[in-house]
């Protein structure tokens, strides 16, 4: 028997001993072409810790997964021995309606959570564009939707977190009160960390009352400059829109700018905004996610005032690369998604846009061969500090290795 086979057998024996459900990895478990040897299905925080301790003993690379809706996001992992599936961490959330707070295990789906909260007339004000997405996966990727303009993103709504580190240490920070400044906020570090610091086991969120009314309105804009002016006017409006979105289905088409008004008298407040532009039909809510399975999905972050320049840059770079992008997203927050067909020209497009904009362009997802040919995350500040955080929390580099900025 070879050394590798021997150590694999020993790892299997260790995993079997901890009493957590473990199955062999199959073709359906592959991540970017890598098939994990095992899939662990822990049912509690303690079971996650047991799995991670066993994995630590055998130098196994671990990839946490929730609903799997974004598993194709980010660069391919360098190694993946064990998939830690949080599907069975889905106990009924602890909803303290009177405190506007909920605590949920990582595997609870966002729909299930929303359903539960709605029964008390409350919501987690985080728009989640993917069906089947879980609390853990939403936090790990920091996905947020249109209402980030008013409510912020996951990091702004998270008030407490329980995580399990690579060595099996269970750590909590925050709590179940909204106002709390005791200790470091580990929740901020783990939100958007793509599984590279440990496993998110449980999260506590602040909630909001469901708005009395919701009303979307939409305008058409002939070009990016007109769109930018509309976005600025809507963002500054004292009707206080919760979202100001943009949709540009293709560079030859006009743009649609839409706004969401929530709360008392939403209809009246929305009507007062209509004179700002020429009315249009409402675009789909998350157009950029409609056909990304074989395509590429990018995220553009620019200061809102640079919106028009950024859109024109995208248009020109796409034309030169022979690509037809769909650009949409939270215009007033300066966070846009670009959906592109997967194509050889992607790499050139990315470099051209990065060189020209005052902002960041991230390749969120792309077919694996294309992904390997570019730097998906691009430049970032403070990379040295980020590496140091990673080294302290996961010194063996076993948590989702290679998936994050700078190869973290």
């Amino acid at each position: 028997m070879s050394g590798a086979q021997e150590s694999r057998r020993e790892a299997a024996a260790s995993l079997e001993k901890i009493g957590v459900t473990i199955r062999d990895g199959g073709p359906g478990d592959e991540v970017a072409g890598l098939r994990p040897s095992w899939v662990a299905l822990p049912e509690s925080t303690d079971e996650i810790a047991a799995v991670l301790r066993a994995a630590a003993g055998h130098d196994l690379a671990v990839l946490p997964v929730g609903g799997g809706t974004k598993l194709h996001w980010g660069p391919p992992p360098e190694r993946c021995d064990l998939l830690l599936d949080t599907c069975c961490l889905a106990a009924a959330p602890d909803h303290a309606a009177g405190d506007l707070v909920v605590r949920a295990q990582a595997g609870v789906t966002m729909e299930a959570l929303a359903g539960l909260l709605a029964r008390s007339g409350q919501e987690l004000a985080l728009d989640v564009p993917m069906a089947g997405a879980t609390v853990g996966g939403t936090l790990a990727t920091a996905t947020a939707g249109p209402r980030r303009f008013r409510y912020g993103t996951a990091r702004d709504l998270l008030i407490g977190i329980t995580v399990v580190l690579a060595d099996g240490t269970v750590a909590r920070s925050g709590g179940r009160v909204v106002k709390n400044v005791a200790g470091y906020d580990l929740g901020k570090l783990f939100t958007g960390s793509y599984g590279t610091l440990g496993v998110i086991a449980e999260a506590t969120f602040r909630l909001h009352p469901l708005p009395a009314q919701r009303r979307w309105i939409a305008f058409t804009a002939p070009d990016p400059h007109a769109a930018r002016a509309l976005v600025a006017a809507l963002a500054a409006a004292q009707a206080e829109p919760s979202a100001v979105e943009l949709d540009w289905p293709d560079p030859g088409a006009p743009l649609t700018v839409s706004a969401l008004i929530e709360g008392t008298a939403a209809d009246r407040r929305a009507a007062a905004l209509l004179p700002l532009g020429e009315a249009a039909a409402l675009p789909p809510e998350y157009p950029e996610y409609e056909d990304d399975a074989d395509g590429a999905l990018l995220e553009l972050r620019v200061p809102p005032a640079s919106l028009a320049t950024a859109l024109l840059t995208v248009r020109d770079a796409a034309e030169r690369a022979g690509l037809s992008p769909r650009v949409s997203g939270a215009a007033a927050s300066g966070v846009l998604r670009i959906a592109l067909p997967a194509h050889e020209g992607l790499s050139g497009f990315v470099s051209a846009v990065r060189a020209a904009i005052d902002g960041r362009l991230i390749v969120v997802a792309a077919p694996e061969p294309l992904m390997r040919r570019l730097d998906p995350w691009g430049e970032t500040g403070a990379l040295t500090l980020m590496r140091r955080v990673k080294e302290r929390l996961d010194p063996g580099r076993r948590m989702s290795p290679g998936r994050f900025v700078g190869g973290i």
Partner: protein
Amino acid sequence: MTEMADVLPGRLAGVLGADAVITDPVRLRTYECDGLTYHRATPGVVVLPETAEQVAAVVRLCNEYGVPFVARGAGTGLSGGALPRTDGVLLVTSRMRRIVEIDLPNRRAVVEPGVTNLAITEAVRDQGYYYAPDPSSQQVCSIGGNVAENSGGAHCLKYGFTVNHVEALEIVTPDGDIVTLDTRDPGYDLAGAFVGSEGTLGVTTKITVRLSRTPESVITLLAAFRDVETGGLAVSRIIAEGIVPAAIEMMDALAIEAAEAAVRCGYPQGAAAVLIVELDGPAAEVAGQFAAVTRICEESGSFELRTADGPEERAAIWKGRKSAFAAVGRISPAYIVQDGVVPRTALPRVLAGIDRLSAEHGIRVANVFHAGDGNLHPLVLFDDAEPGAGERAELVSARILDLCVENGGSITGEHGVGVDKARYMPRMFSKDDLDTMQLVRCAFDPRGLSNPGKVFPTPRLCGEVPGVRKGVHPLVASGKAEQF
């Protein structure tokens, strides 16, 4: 230490100029405490840098000599977070007061750490914007200090804390590098982790804050109740109706008595509790909420309601509340300001518990609190001339924190842990929780020079990473620290 006294001040003066280095013992004593005056230490040396480069040079010198440093803004903190080290350098940001840029099209401003919280709002108010977090010391407290403490304020119920309004930070790391932490950059949310770290992860030298649109309409209500319970009931019903006011504040009878004595705020006669509710937002929305809050207060038993929709009437309503901390000085020779949080629904239980503690120990407690988010500020009153009274007050104050933790709350909602509450951290967090936070500390500050002794209960040393321990550290051998 000898080097500290003999050589370091000269080296610092070489970098900053002699007028920016204070070594005169009398002047040093000006800096011996922050807003929490019962913790005092005379700093080894005080420096007044003007630029990030100067801060970085100071920090590098501290590294060269192995000397700890503490950053201080306006010194209004209430947890001793800016308590100096006698063996260290105190970095005071009072000369870093420039508003670098106001960028309204992007709704942001770039400021230096010594700029006061209110100065940001004043710079943009005429254009219809403001900076949302409003700690009660906002006229004097510095934005750098707000970042360190993740400051909130009365209006954070609706608008959140400093961390929700910071877009980017320029910091000097504990080893002396100037680094930008930008929430828009890909990677870990280091800005999010840095805000509220109480100076233990480095020194802020520039802050990009988000600006908010001034609301179209603001209405402030004052509702008087015969007791705290019915006031609390009104709060619960307001929240249950799906209303998120900008602020909901409550004062009990003793706090009202103090405020009347100090500022004659003229609150309704016979009120044993007053509730201040502020609603803001689009006019149409505020009008609807105002009608609902009025109805709820009346139905809950409020015997007098006052309404303010102009700035002067609003100021009159807030006057008593804003003066409350200082006002208790009129009814008590000495007092401790406590800061704890409980889930809002636990308020009645916890307030009853505070009453019991008060009766049991013969110590009066005045209650002022942010009722909307369960953030209590009990004012523990005592006579420092009476033997043993200070100790009993300390005990009551500590037991109040226990009550908060037992009820699922926190030992601090906005004042911070600092030096004052480091010993309470193990009541709220396990050893593993604290050890994990310490890993973050070690990533930023492996030598433990940045504001040591704050936040965490046990001094710890950061081991080499990754790798093998190299013998026993002398401090570990002597039992003064744990290796980490």
